[in-house]
C-alpha cells in the first residue's frame, strides 16, 4: 500500500525549499516492508530493522539519502549517520498513518468509512482572541500532603491528574466550580484540584476540601483509618458522576462514563442443549484475581486477562431457559464487549476470605505488566463463539499505553500507598508530598496494585456534532426563551399596573 505524499500534501514542494541539503521531490511511503533495500552497500544501519532507503536528487546521483524506519516513522540521515528529528516529518508520518487507518476501518453496522481527521485551526475570531493570551506549560506536577493516613487518596488523585481525558475535561473548563450550583460537589473539587496543580505554585498542597467533601458524601469513607485506594477510586468516580451535569442512570454521558465506562459480556452456554444466553453489564474497571502461578512461570497482566476471559464451568446449578432443565453443565465466558478510553486494572491483593488463622492476608506476588498492551484478544469480537470471523478493525483501535501505577507496601491495615505517573515520555514517582523523576524501568519493576492504561487512538462517532456542543447550544436557546418569557412577564406587570391606575380613577 503506497501513499504518494506529494499528492496528499501539495505543499510539500514549497517546503522543499526549506531543505538546504536535501531536495525532496516525492517520498514514497511503503506500508509493509519485509526486508530492507540499501542503495549504499557500505551503510549497514542495523540488521533486522526495516529501513526503506530512498535516494533523493537522482539527477546528481549523490550518495546522500534519507531513510525511514517503517515501524516508527523515524527519519535517518546518511550525512549525519544518525536518526534525526524533524517536526514536519513527524507530523506527516502521523497524518499518513492516520489516513491509512481511516481508509482501512469500516464501521461494523453501517459499513461507512471513518470521518477523516481534521486538525483544529483557529478561525479569525479565535486567532484574534488567542493573540492576547499567555501560553502556559501543560504539565502540572505537585506533591500532595498526607493529611493523616490519606496516602490512599493522594495516589488516586495523582492518577486522575495524569489521566489525559480527565485533565483535558477540567482544563477545558467544562465544570467551572464558580458557576456550579451544587453543594458538596466532588466535580467542583476536581476542578479545584486541577486549578491547584496547574497554578504557578510547585510546592505540595493538602487536598483538604476534597477529603472533606468525600467524607460528607460517603460516610463510610470517613475517619482517619487507612482506606483501600481502589474503594476510594470507585467512590470518587460515583461521586463525580453524580455531580456532573447531565448525568443519567442509563447510558450516562458524563466525564466519568466517557472516560472509564466499558461493557462486559457474560456468555453462558448450556452444555445440554447448546443454548447461549448473553448478558451485558457496564463496568468502570477490571479487577483481576491473583492465583498461584505455578512453579516457574510468573504472573503477567496478559496471563490474568487470559484467565479472566477463558471459558469456565459454572460452579453452581444452572436453569437453562431453553431446555428448561436444571443442569450442572453450563459454561460461562467473560469478554470485553466495549473498551473504554481509560482502562483501570486492579489486582486483588487483599483477600477478605479468612485463610488459616482468621487474618486476611495480602497477596504480595509481583505481577509483570507492560508499558503497552493490545486488548484485542480479550474482546467479545475476538472471542466470538458464533463461528463467523468479522474483521475486528486495525490493531491501532486496541492499543493502550500505561500512564499510572499505584503501589502498596506493607500489610492490609498498616501499609503505605505510593504511585508512578507518566507525563509524555517521562516517569515520575509520587510519595505523598515527595515527587521525584523516575524511569520506566523502575516503574515496571515495582509491585503494582492498580494500573491505568489510556487508549492510543480515540474513537469518535462520525459526522456528528459532539453532545456537549449540542447541549451548550440547547442551553443558549433555553436561556433566550427564558429571557423572552421574563421580558413578557415584566411587560405584563407594567400593563397591569397601568390598567390598575386607570381603573382607579
Amino acid at each position, binding site marked *: 500500500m503506497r501513499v504518494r505524499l506529494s499528492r496528499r500534501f501539495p505543499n510539500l514542494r514549497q517546503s522543499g525549499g526549506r531543505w538546504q541539503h536535501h531536495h525532496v521531490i516525492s517520498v514514497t511511503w511503503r506500508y509493509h516492508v519485509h526486508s530492507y533495500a540499501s542503495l549504499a552497500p557500505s551503510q549497514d544501519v542495523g540488521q533486522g530493522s526495516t529501513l526503506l532507503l530512498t535516494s533523493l536528487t537522482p539527477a546528481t546521483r549523490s550518495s546522500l539519502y534519507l531513510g525511514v524506519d517503517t515501524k516508527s516513522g523515524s527519519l*535517518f540521515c546518511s550525512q549525519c549517520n*544518525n536518526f534525526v528529528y524533524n517536526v514536519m516529518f513527524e507530523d506527516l508520518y502521523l497524518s499518513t498513518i492516520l489516513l491509512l487507518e481511516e481508509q482501512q476501518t469500516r464501521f461494523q453496522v453501517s459499513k461507512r468509512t471513518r470521518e477523516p481527521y481534521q486538525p483544529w485551526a483557529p478561525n479569525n475570531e479565535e486567532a484574534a482572541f488567542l493573540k492576547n493570551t499567555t501560553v502556559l506549560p501543560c504539565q502540572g506536577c505537585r506533591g500532595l500532603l498526607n493529611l493523616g493516613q490519606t496516602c490512599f487518596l493522594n495516589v488516586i488523585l495523582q492518577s486522575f491528574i495524569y489521566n489525559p481525558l480527565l485533565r483535558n475535561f477540567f482544563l477545558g473548563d467544562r465544570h467551572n466550580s464558580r458557576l456550579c450550583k451544587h453543594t458538596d460537589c466532588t466535580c467542583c473539587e476536581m476542578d479545584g484540584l486541577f486549578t491547584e496543580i496547574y497554578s504557578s505554585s510547585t510546592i505540595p498542597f493538602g487536598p483538604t476540601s476534597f477529603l472533606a467533601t468525600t467524607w460528607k458524601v460517603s460516610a463510610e469513607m470517613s475517619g482517619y483509618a487507612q482506606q483501600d485506594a481502589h474503594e476510594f477510586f470507585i467512590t470518587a468516580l460515583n461521586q463525580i458522576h453524580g455531580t456532573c451535569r447531565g448525568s443519567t442512570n442509563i447510558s450516562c454521558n458524563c466525564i466519568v462514563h466517557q472516560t472509564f465506562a466499558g461493557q462486559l459480556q457474560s456468555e453462558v452456554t448450556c452444555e445440554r442443549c447448546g443454548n447461549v444466553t448473553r448478558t451485558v453489564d457496564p463496568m468502570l474497571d477490571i479487577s483481576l484475581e491473583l492465583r498461584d502461578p505455578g512453579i516457574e512461570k510468573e504472573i503477567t497482566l*496478559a*496471563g490474568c486477562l487470559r484467565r479472566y476471559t477463558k471459558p469456565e464451568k459454572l460452579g453452581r446449578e444452572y436453569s437453562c431457559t431453553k431446555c428448561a432443565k436444571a443442569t450442572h453443565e453450563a459454561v460461562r465466558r467473560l469478554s470485553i464487549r466495549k473498551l473504554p478510553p481509560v482502562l483501570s486494572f486492579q489486582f486483588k491483593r487483599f483477600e477478605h476470605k479468612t485463610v488459616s488463622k482468621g487474618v486476611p492476608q495480602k497477596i504480595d506476588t509481583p505481577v*509483570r505488566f*507492560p508499558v503497552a498492551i493490545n486488548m484485542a484478544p480479550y474482546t467479545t469480537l475476538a472471542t466470538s463463539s458464533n463461528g463467523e470471523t468479522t474483521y475486528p478493525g486495525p490493531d491501532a483501535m486496541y492499543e493502550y499505553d500505561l500512564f499510572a501505577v499505584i503501589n502498596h507496601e506493607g500489610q492490609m491495615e498498616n501499609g503505605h500507598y505510593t504511585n508512578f505517573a507518566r507525563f509524555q515520555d517521562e516517569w515520575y514517582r509520587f510519595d505523598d508530598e515527595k515527587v521525584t523523576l523516575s524511569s*520506566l524501568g523502575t516503574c*515496571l519493576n515495582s509491585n503494582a496494585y492498580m494500573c491505568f492504561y489510556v487508549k492510543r487512538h480515540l474513537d469518535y462517532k462520525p459526522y456528528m456534532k459532539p453532545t456537549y456542543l449540542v447541549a451548550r447550544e440547547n442551553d443558549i436557546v433555553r436561556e433566550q426563551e427564558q429571557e423572552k418569557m421574563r421580558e413578557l412577564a415584566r411587560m405584563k406587570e407594567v400593563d397591569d399596573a397601568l390598567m390598575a391606575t386607570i381603573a382607579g380613577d
Partner: protein
Amino acid sequence: MSKSTSDADALYTQVHRRMVESGDWDRILRVLSAKLSEQGWSDELYHRAKERARMMDPPLFKTVLEEISLHGEATVPVSVRRETTAQIRQFVKDQFEK
C-alpha cells in the same frame, strides 16, 4: 569462505525466502514479539535504550543499537528461545520433507 559456510548461507537464504512467502515468517515473528513483550523483554530494552540515549550528547543510534543488541541477545528468556526455535525447526522439517 569455506564451502560448508557458503552452503549454510545458501540454505539460510532459501529457508528465509520460503518462510516469508508462506507467511510463516510473519506468524512466528508475531508470536515471538508477543511472548517477548509479555515477559517484559521489549520494555526492558526500550527502557535501557532511552536511558542510554539520555546520557549521550548527541544521542547516537548506532552506539545505542550495538549496546542494547548485546544485552537483548543475552537476555532472551530460555523458554521463548526454545519455543521459537522449535517452531522454526518444525517449519524446516515440513518444508524439506516434501
